[in-house]
């Protein structure tokens, strides 16, 4: 099967393809006015013909940018009578606790477009007040007259019984064909009305714009001879059909960043790493994810635009912790003399000072050039010479002189502060989840990731670091690994051991039949699909739950010991205590369906023997490590020419086209048979100072 993955980022459009067992790669500038233009260029650069492709995978930031830039179409909201303001009242909290000028999340639907209808269910899903269908019909006509493009429908307790939402959806679509309708139970069957409403609104709000975008993409590809399948990356790390993405675009919020973590998962599987921390550092941010047994962790939602004023999105998303520290992050001083790095970034325009494109603020990349860690003559494979002197001047002027530090000290300080911030992100996805970093390995990628990864490992006591093949193109590559995936959840409250078997079976049947419907719609063979059941458990009286995998529905109904044991163990691992013997409560049922990718794949590329290029002469240059006054003479190696089994001990720098790996003294890197670098980190004993 010939597949191609295209990631449209803020700066670059990345393409990685797998054609007749060969990998093709290209990179071109993103064309924001018409993103498909950039895609066309990338295809051309890769020398690919659309006719020969069976599958086109795509990740995009269009959904999340539509929210962040508030570029969605006019959207309405329909709620249970008495509750249209829940969406604006939200949870009433003020995360910026001492700020008397705090701001609240700004609703995407203004109050005059929020409507109520007489209908009511109780928490068991029983009808207390029947829905006023005539009123819904009248609303449909009104929306049509006013030219409103989309509507979100969220009724109280619809997770328990969706019949009123179904009726409202049917009537709205009848009276106003073409209206983009999102019913809350169709995308999220969990209680908590505010978060469910927000998720539903997000879908409706981005819906028309994303659907148009996807349609343009589809017709562009079709016009140019493509007749394969188009799959879209979703935030949960899987992919979905273009048709599905067009009705559930909220699932593609993190469509861009997840792919690299999927790739890291594959590398972890190939190398047999049980606990890995995926670490991705690009131009503006760094991201970390915990990968267990080759599977990136998934969390139930997050806040788009940040916790304080963002919009909650409660669908599963790969648990990525992001910090505003990337190669372009700017170093600065506050009024009291404190030194900081980021989150403001020089991005690609003007870029770091050393790019020589007008940047004046010293960045992390500048610091790395000053310290000798980046080679000014081999950046982007030598395609972009860097201005070392400019970087030094800016670092001295903005940071060094005002703080009384030498330029090298200042540069080292900038790198250390960045490392410290990134270490906290890595800590957040590891130790905070009960994972001891000393038992884990880091898998680092992104252009800047391998530059900083060794220092991070030292800081957090991670003994093993992996730099996979093609770390600078790793995100696009990961896309070709994403299985088709469908997650669903259904609230079901009860006590473990006293569950009504009929209800549980009915609950799972419902989830399964919805999944089968989706498989059929996407023309996938259910025989190839993997169905994983799960349940959210907690001790009675607790609120937050822990998802626990289930061997079968019967195991849950019978409260098999494997279920209780797993729950106690997970609870102890996460929170440091367990309460064996206490009553365990069930909160919801889960189903995850995946369809693995068939045929040859990038996973094979990652696992196949590595054939090195012809050797290149080794170089040497001074590199600053821990002491800015005593740079060490480091070996400089060209990675593509290093054969499997090759070993090097730091101080050393291993360079390749789109990335650079920095080894500290005592660290030993070895090239695996597949061409990945595995580095044994020399961990300091005792005082780190």
């Amino acid at each position, binding site marked *: 099967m010939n597949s191609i993955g295209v990631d449209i980022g803020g700066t670059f459009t990345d393409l990685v393809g797998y054609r007749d067992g060969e990998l093709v790669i290209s990179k071109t500038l993103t064309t924001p006015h018409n993103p498909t233009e950039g895609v066309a260029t990338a295809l051309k650069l890769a020398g690919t013909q659309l006719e020969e492709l069976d599958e086109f995978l795509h990740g995009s930031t269009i959904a999340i940018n539509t929210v962040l830039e508030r570029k969605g179409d006019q959207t309405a909201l329909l709620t249970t009578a008495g509750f249209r303001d829940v969406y604006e009242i939200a949870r009433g909290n003020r995360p910026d606790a001492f700020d008397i000028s705090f701001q609240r999340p700004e609703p995407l639907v203004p109050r005059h477009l929020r409507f109520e209808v007489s209908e009511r269910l109780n928490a068991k899903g029983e009808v207390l007040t029947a829905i006023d269908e005539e009123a819904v019909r009248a609303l449909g006509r009104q929306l049509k007259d006013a030219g409103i493009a989309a509507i979100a429908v969220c009724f109280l307790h619809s997770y328990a019984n969706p019949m009123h939402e179904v009726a409202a959806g049917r009537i709205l679509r009848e009276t106003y064909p073409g209206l983009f309708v999102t019913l809350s139970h169709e995308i999220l069957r969990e209680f908590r009305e505010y978060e469910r409403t927000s998720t539903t609104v997000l879908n409706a709000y981005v819906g028309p714009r994303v659907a148009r975008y996807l349609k343009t993409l589809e017709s562009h590809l079709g016009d140019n001879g493509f007749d394969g399948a188009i799959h879209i990356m979703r935030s949960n790390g899987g992919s979905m059909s273009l048709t599905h993405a067009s009705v559930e675009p909220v699932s593609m919020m993190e469509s861009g960043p997840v792919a690299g973590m999927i790739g890291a998962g594959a590398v972890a599987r190939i190398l047999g790493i049980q606990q890995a921390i995926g670490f991705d550092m690009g131009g503006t941010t760094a991201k970390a994810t915990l990968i267990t047994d080759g599977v990136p962790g998934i969390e139930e939602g997050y806040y788009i635009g940040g916790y304080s004023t963002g919009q909650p999105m409660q669908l599963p998303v790969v648990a990525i912790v992001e910090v505003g520290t990337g190669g372009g992050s700017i170093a600065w001083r506050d009024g009291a003399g404190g030194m900081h790095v980021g989150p403001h970034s020089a991005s690609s325009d003007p870029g770091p000072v050393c790019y020589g494109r007008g940047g004046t603020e010293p960045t992390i990349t500048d610091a790395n050039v000053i310290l000798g860690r980046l080679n000014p003559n081999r950046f982007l494979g030598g395609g972009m010479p860097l201005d070392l002197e400019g970087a030094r001047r800016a670092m001295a002027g903005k940071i060094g002189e005002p703080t009384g530090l030498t330029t090298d000290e200042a540069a080292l300080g900038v790198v250390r502060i960045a490392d410290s911030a990134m270490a906290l992100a890595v800590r957040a996805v590891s130790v905070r989840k009960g994972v001891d970093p000393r038992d884990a390995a880091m898998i680092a990628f992104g252009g800047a990731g391998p530059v900083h990864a060794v220092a991070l490992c030292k800081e957090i006591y991670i003994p093993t670091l992996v730099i996979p093949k093609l770390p600078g193109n790793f995100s696009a590559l990961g896309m070709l690994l994403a299985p088709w995936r469908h997650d669903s959840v259904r609230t079901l409250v009860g006590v473990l051991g006293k569950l009504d078997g009929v209800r549980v079976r009915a609950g799972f049947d419902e989830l399964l039949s919805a999944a089968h419907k989706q498989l059929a719609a996407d023309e996938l063979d259910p025989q190839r699909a993997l169905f994983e059941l799960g349940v959210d458990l907690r001790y009675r009286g607790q*609120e937050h739950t822990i998802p626990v995998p289930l061997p079968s529905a019967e195991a849950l109904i019978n409260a098999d010991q494997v279920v209780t044991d797993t729950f106690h163990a997970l609870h102890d691992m996460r*929170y440091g205590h367990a309460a064996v013997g206490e009553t365990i409560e069930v909160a919801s049922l889960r189903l995850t369906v995946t369809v693995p990718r068939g045929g040859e794949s990038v996973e094979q590329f990652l696992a196949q023997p590595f054939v090195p290029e012809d050797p290149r002469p080794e170089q040497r240059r001074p590199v600053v490590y821990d002491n800015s006054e005593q740079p060490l003479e480091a070996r400089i190696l060209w990675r593509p020419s290093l054969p499997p089994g090759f070993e090097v001990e730091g101080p050393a720098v291993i360079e390749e086209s789109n990335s650079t790996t920095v080894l500290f003294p005592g660290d030993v890197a070895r090239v695996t048979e597949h061409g990945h670098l595995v580095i044994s980190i020399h961990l300091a004993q005792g*005082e*780190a100072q």
Partner: protein
Amino acid sequence: MNAITPAGMSAMKTRVNPVTQEVVTNSLIAYADEMALALCKSAYNMMIYEVRDFCCGLIDTDGRMICQNTGGLPIFLADLGIAVKDGIDRYGLDGFAPGDVIIMNHGGVCGQHLNNVVVYTPCFHQGKVVAFAANRAHWVDVGGLRTGFGNSQTYEIYHEGLQMRSIKLFEAGKRNEGVWQMITDNIRFPESSLGDLRAQTAACHIGERRLSELLSRFSVQTVNDCIASSWDQAEAEARAIVAGIPDGRYTAESWLDSDGRQLDVPIRVKVTVEVKGTDLTIDYSEMNPQVNSPLNSGFSGGLSAARVAFKCLTMPKAPVNEGCFRGLKLISPEGTIVNARWGAALGQWSVALPTVIDTILRALAPALPGFVPAAHKGDMGGCSFYGVREDTGARYVLMNIYGGGWGGRKDRDGASCSVSICQGDVRNTPVELQEIHYPVLIECVKLREDSGGAGEHRGGLGLEMRYRSLGKSTININLERTFEPPWGVEGGQAGRSNRSLIQRADGSEREVKKESNIPLGAGDCVTFWTAGGGGYGDPTKRERAQVERDLLDGYVTAEGAARDYGFDVPGTGLGSRLRGNDGQGDLVIPAPTSVTPAPTSVIPAQAGTQAPAKERQA
């Protein structure tokens, strides 16, 4: 140097490597956050997991705060250290062993309601205690006369439940079974609270572990230097802000409704703020004497309020540490509602504090033109229903904390339906969650139209929320600031005040302000309207386009627009007609003239199976 006592270092002024400092201080805050996350996620009661009524941190061996979790409750600023200090004084630093877990809620020391239970553990390094990992969390019940929020009947601390003063619940890892039994037998929801206790203890252990990791990388000396230096920086930053406030004495006075037992005597909140150079002194000398009801806090309550106000003024975005408050002096004589003598009831300890903070800011408003917003809702905004479920026989208590309007500001309208200045990242309880767990049906949760004080920048709106009890239940109601609603500033008007109404299934109804243990039967309804924020600036200066938007969105009704803003709805002459008759005109209000549909076009006004409560002018 064998303990983490950073302030002891301040005289030395060691120059700390700025990079090491950033690493150490970031790490400490991350540890406190990690403790908070574990506590929140594994807690057993809504006040912790949903409402987030807790704080976590590391405390030095002198009882000072090394770090505290971010985003917690502002009012927990003077908290943990006082509790831990009591244990240090009792046992001595040599009297702790690894595996000790100490529990503490003593009213005389902590000065808060007894539900706020502190749990802490000693952190050892090379065989010595170097610090303590501590947290405070709101237990759902501690026995005594009070269940849930808002009970005003107690008048001495002994009515209010079990007190535990610096008791070692675990000694060197071994549980003190006698104490455990005594707790189990004296509180209403032992399963819940002992679960919380487990979560609290585990959170402390996380703090211990992290600190020990930090000390394996940096010496105690280095960590102390980093903390001392971060405190110095915070102090310098705060003092620089204070220096910008003109020297002088500033006074303001506000009024609380009553102590809850004697309903016709208002309570005076009077503060004087003196600014002199870089020192700011808050003086509570003229505060109302302590009362014979639970509306008292100990010293730490008044201190917390002063600290919250000071932090809002000086460096609202920076992390909290002791250095932030070195520029603040407090005069708080014993015997007032914010420093009650030992023995006073403390059940409603926090109720006065939002008004105390508002009043401190009010005093400084003339010195800081444009900085201080109009008053916010000024109460803690909570309700609780409790009883025994008729279907299962289980005892229950429902607790919900919700917001109200905040005051208009110099440059924008006040926020709507937000929790008080004391509460920060406290969240309301979802309707669906309440209905799943408790025998109530919630009939509406909506913005309270016209409740924001009129002004050039309007006050934020309060909310309206109606509960229908599905069986026998009991409720406490404790409204505040109804006599002196949230005030406006610079010519802005006051916001609408708090209000509640009980409507019985038999059709009778009555307004309630403060009352404890009100029985409810099936079908009885309770409606709460929370206060709106005060307005900022003269309402006539409000931009016409903004009034139009308010009308379109229904934040302001046509009557309100006419009455408060002299606004004529186009083509009707409505404003001029209404101004004459105080909004009581019997007029048909046309929909706003706009291309978009009117807000309530699908169903008119309120829903519900019962006739909606009619709002009257308070």
